[in-house]
């Protein structure tokens, strides 16, 4: 049986990859993909704990996290679309009219 720690390490690594990705990438879409990756890493932590704590709350929480991620994806991509409609770029660098 693989001890719990390994699952936690895997999810922490995925989470860190996602977080680093959010800071280094400039394409808004890929930034959101990295955030989606982070949410998946959190789901993995929930399921790992739920298995080792032997109670089912973890599954319910993952259920809810998935619906939230889907709703957020729908809204977020709609924002990116409306952004693209005005200005033909998705790069976060070029989107800084309001520096100050």
């Amino acid at each position, binding site marked *: 049986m693989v001890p719990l720690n390994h699952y936690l390490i895997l999810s922490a690594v995925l989470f860190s990859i996602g977080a680093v990705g959010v800071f280094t990438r400039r394409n808004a879409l890929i930034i959101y993909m990295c955030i989606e990756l982070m949410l998946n890493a959190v789901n993995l932590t929930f399921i790992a704990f739920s298995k080792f704590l032997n109670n089912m709350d973890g599954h319910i929480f993952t259920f809810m996290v*998935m*619906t939230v991620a889907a*709703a957020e994806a*729908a809204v977020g991509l709609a924002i990116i*679309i409306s952004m693209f409609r005005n200005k033909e770029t998705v790069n976060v660098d070029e989107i800084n009219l309001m520096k100050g």
Partner: protein
Amino acid sequence: MMLLLAAGTAAGILVATTLIGPKKEFADKMEPFECGEHPIVSPKLRFSVKFYLVAIFFVIFDIEAVFLYPWAVIFKDLGIFGFVEMMIFIIILAIGLIYVWRRGALEWQ
């Protein structure tokens, strides 16, 4: 064990072809194939937003369906309480559907 073997051979062959196979990448060869003529329009054509809107509705109502799966499993034991609970869920999302439909987001022409 069998799985490893199968995966191994498949990967092996793949790697072999990429390594050994002749690779000449000159412009014509890399263009998307259009029966010999040079492609006129770039294949990545832009398509309008309504395709995207339908994708969103698919995602949202897919989640609704996902909530129905566990409900169907224990429908009998829940009795009236479970039924009312799910009806509230369905009605709220039906309102979403009515809104979208009346708002004209579903037109296709």
